[in-house]
């Protein structure tokens, strides 16, 4: 019994570790709990992301049109709306590959704010919001192709 449990735990742990190694993303999102909003009301929501220590990504407003901005796209269900998405300002930083040039980037932790609104009369219940964060990451000497990570959370409309 005990041996079976250990074996199962080892299997799960190794699969999770292998999956993580196979799909390391330079950016990860902090989990969001169930978001509650009153019918007829609104609620501010902060979506928190972390850029891996050796990486940086372009901010939402990079300094060149050729650079790929960080963009959060969310698709709410018909019952709720999202408004006032606010991106943080980028940090102006220079890097060893181009010490004379400043790039507008996010590194470390950053948050994107939005407001969830549930119109009056919205049926009470739980609704999924899905979307993705698109970004393009570089490290001190190379850049990665643009990629997206899924963003998903649950909104519960209450009385």
């Amino acid at each position, binding site marked *: 019994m005990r*041996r079976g449990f*250990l*074996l199962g735990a*080892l*299997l799960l742990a*190794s*699969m999770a570790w*292998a*999956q993580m190694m*196979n799909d390391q993303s330079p950016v990860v999102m902090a989990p969001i709990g169930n978001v509650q909003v009153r019918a007829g009301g609104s609620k501010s929501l902060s979506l928190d992301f972390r850029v891996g220590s050796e990486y940086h990504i372009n901010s939402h407003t990079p300094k060149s049109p*050729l*650079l*790929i901005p960080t963009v959060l796209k969310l698709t709410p269900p018909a019952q709720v709306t999202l408004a006032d998405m606010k991106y943080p300002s980028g940090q102006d930083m220079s*890097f060893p*590959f*181009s010490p004379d*040039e400043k*790039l507008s980037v996010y590194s470390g932790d950053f948050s994107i704010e939005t407001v969830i609104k549930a119109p009056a009369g919205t049926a009470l219940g739980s609704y999924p919001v899905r979307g993705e964060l698109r970004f*393009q990451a*570089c*490290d001190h*000497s*190379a*850049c*990665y*192709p*643009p990629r997206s990570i899924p963003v998903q959370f649950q909104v519960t409309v209450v009385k």
Partner: protein
Amino acid sequence: MKRNALVFVALFVAILAMLASGKYLDRYRKHGPLNLVGDVKGVPAPDFTLVSLDGNKVKLSDYRGKAVLLNFWATWCSPCKVEMPWFADLQKQYGPDGLAVLGIAMDDSKPDAIAKFASEMGVNYPVLLGTDKVSDDYGDVQYLPTTFYIGRNGVVLDKMVGLGDRAEIEDNVKKSLNTVYRPNGPPQAEAQVKPTTKDSSKDTSR
């Protein structure tokens, strides 16, 4: 107890291997084999036909007999911008000795935008529009810049991932120029580098 530990380790390794092979097979089904993975030195450079910014079809094998610096880059890659003027200088300096620099733009931008960017970087060599196939053939080029140094015999001498040191890049160019070309032979299984002489950049084999 010792036996149990061995079983656990074996299972762990087996699962890792299955996941890794699953990922590889998934990619294989989508794009075909990844040719240049791992140590690429001495491997014949996969031939390709790509469209250049001026609309011409360019084949790598058309450059047999020349030393080729094959640089994967993109307009959104800031480190790539540092190398491109160096490559232009090297093309100017070593072009008469048989160097051919080829840029492959791994970019979703329109060719006009890529051409404008390349012009601003002083690029004086052909820029080709990259494809998933050429990326996969060269080992799934994900990090940019990535540069391959190909000898006159069509064999990869070295691969540099990320922004390189200019002196190191020039050394690789010289090594590529010093390879032996056999006009009627296939790409050699192993690079044949001529002994370095005082004037090693001059080629007499053509």
